[in-house]
């Protein structure tokens, strides 16, 4: 098992390195970080621009710049943004905000998808199955920003009217300068989290529930289920103990592969609800050609995605003993 994990790690590390080259090339060509300085009115003396260029290391060849950047990055130094703010604390703070939504939405989506997928498979070709199938297709075809905006503009108002006070919020990740007990804070967080999380979860739910249904049907049609029934076990016992346990395994891989997609969805959902998370940071970085922010953003995301894939691989091997470690 340990050698399996190590072998997997040995594949993952070059992947991250290659990814860093790709990211660097992408961002290095994404525009001139000095454009703002050059475009100033009255014009800045050429000496100042030259100094700045030297300071940012832009006068060196591309491979040298890459190595310098990589060296600093590995040591945890992500440089400064165009506004002179340290990138690392900034990114870390934004990441926490986004991860809150991503993790919660993933959990919600997994639970919903397993429930709906298994139910649809067990009751194949009944109204229950058709309803879940239709819902799955509907959310699969729905743009996440439209669903999020729908929840924000209409759902929130209805919900708040129902409770007679503001329980769900539609702007930001938390109430700024919130004071009060820990309980109040938690309620505030939840109120801000609920709508974006639902929007994000429903989109992932769609694909996963379809997948879960297919896997469950696959398992239900296998010989060992027929044997379990034939030897007299009750239907419910066969379903939970024999079928469900095995039908859950393949979903692990799908969820892991979709990490990148969920992150992408979170960027958009954040925009709808005006969260100051990774999404806003990305758009801001793009608009301001903030090289260090973009580099750090893309690199950290890429590491997270690779990490999740690694975890899924290991988890899969643990859950399914037929996978060869060797």
């Amino acid at each position, binding site marked *: 098992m340990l050698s399996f994990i190590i072998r997997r790690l040995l594949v993952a590390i070059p992947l991250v390195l290659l990814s860093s080259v*790709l990211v660097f090339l992408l*961002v290095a060509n994404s525009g001139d970080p000095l454009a703002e300085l050059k475009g100033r009115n009255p014009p800045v003396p050429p000496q100042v621009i030259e100094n700045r260029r030297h300071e940012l290391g832009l006068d060196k060849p591309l491979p040298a710049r890459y190595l310098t950047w990589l060296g600093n990055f590995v040591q945890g130094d992500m440089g400064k943004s165009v506004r002179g703010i340290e990138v690392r604390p900034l990114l870390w703070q934004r990441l926490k905000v986004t991860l809150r939504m991503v993790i919660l939405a993933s959990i919600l989506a997994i639970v919903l998808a397993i429930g709906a997928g298994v139910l649809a498979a067990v009751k194949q070709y009944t109204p229950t199955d058709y309803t879940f199938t239709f819902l799955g*297709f509907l959310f699969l075809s*729905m*743009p996440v920003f439209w669903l999020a*905006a729908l929840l924000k503009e209409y759902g929130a108002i209805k919900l708040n009217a129902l409770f007679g006070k503001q329980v769900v919020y539609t702007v930001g990740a938390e109430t700024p300068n919130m004071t009060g007990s820990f309980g109040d804070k938690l309620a505030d967080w939840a109120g801000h989290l609920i709508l974006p999380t639902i929007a994000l979860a429903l989109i992932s739910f769609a694909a996963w529930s379809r997948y879960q249904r297919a896997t469950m049907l696959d398992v239900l049609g296998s010989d060992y289920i027929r044997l379990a029934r034939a030897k007299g076990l009750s239907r419910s016992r066969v379903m939970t103990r024999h079928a469900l346990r095995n039908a859950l395994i393949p979903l692990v891989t799908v969820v892991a592969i979709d990490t990148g997609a969920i992150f992408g969805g979170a960027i958009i959902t954040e*925009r*709808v609800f005006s969260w100051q998370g990774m999404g806003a940071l990305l758009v801001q970085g793009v608009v301001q050609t903030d090289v260090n922010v973009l580099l750090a953003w893309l690199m950290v995301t890429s590491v997270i*995605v690779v990490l999740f894939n690694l975890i899924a691989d290991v988890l899969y091997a643990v859950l399914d003993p037929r996978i060869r470690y060797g």
Partner: protein
Amino acid sequence: MADTRPRPPETRPAAGTTGPTGDGQDLQTTEHGVKVHEVPATTTEREFTVVRRSQTQMVIRRFMAHKLAVGSLVVFVLVVLVSLIGGRFWKYGYADITDQFSSPPSLAHPMGTDDIGHDSLAQVLRGAQKSVQVALLVAFLSTTVGAVIGALAGYYRGWVDSALMRFTDLVLTIPSIAILAVLAATLADKAGNWFFVGVVLALLLWTYIARVVRGTFLSLREKEFVEAARALGASDTRIMFRHLLPNATGSIIVNATVMVSVAILTETALSYLGLGIKSPDTSLGLLISTGQQAATTRPWLFYFPGLMIIIIALTINFVGDGLRDAFDPTQTRVRA
């Protein structure tokens, strides 16, 4: 379609190795069930005439039995046609400004107007045109690139396979919307162009098709008919494109439909973020982004572009689902 139809291996003439060309020609004609049927028309009808159905005919028959998929196909084709050319026949252009401001849907303006006086239907048609153009381009490009790369990886295996598959892993490590966002800024003047958006999307989305085709090729290349073709002296290129690719057609077509819906959702999301197609031109994502600001007072500006996206993506997804069943040789719900 007719050329790529999967043929049963035993009747496949390994052309180029069969000697006289007339020989190969002969086999080709008798292979079509229809042709066989035409021959006995002059002679007396046999008591039992069984016309062999080709693979394509079977797939079409199974697909036609899937009512939801057929209905979706009709709606999809209609919507695509209306999107592509409908704008020309509507009395308002997408940039025209009428004297009606923020009017709700009416006979004159079936989708209402916005606060500047643009006719919403004209704008939705224009937006749908851009989205559909991007989606079709992406489906075509990503399927072609993905099929070729997947075919090479699955057929040659070894280091070719490893290199190509690590490369697809690499593309998957970064959310495509982030790459798109950075690229859109890089090539700002081109970014508003639907063709550019489509090409970049295709460059990020081919990985799915590549994985599917690779998987199919890995299992097919071990089959006897490939061995037979090789024994007859067929080249690698010939085996790949004439023998293996037709057998992977089913999964390729199904995934191409998935690409259409993925592309439309990604393109509109990008425009929603303000990084895709830009004003003065318009797109469905951009329309929703502006419509959302007045969602409670002028809901029609928000609903219609969203519904348009859902209709396009939903119908193509249903078509894909129908095709998946139709291409599945193990499915038995419909007699084909």
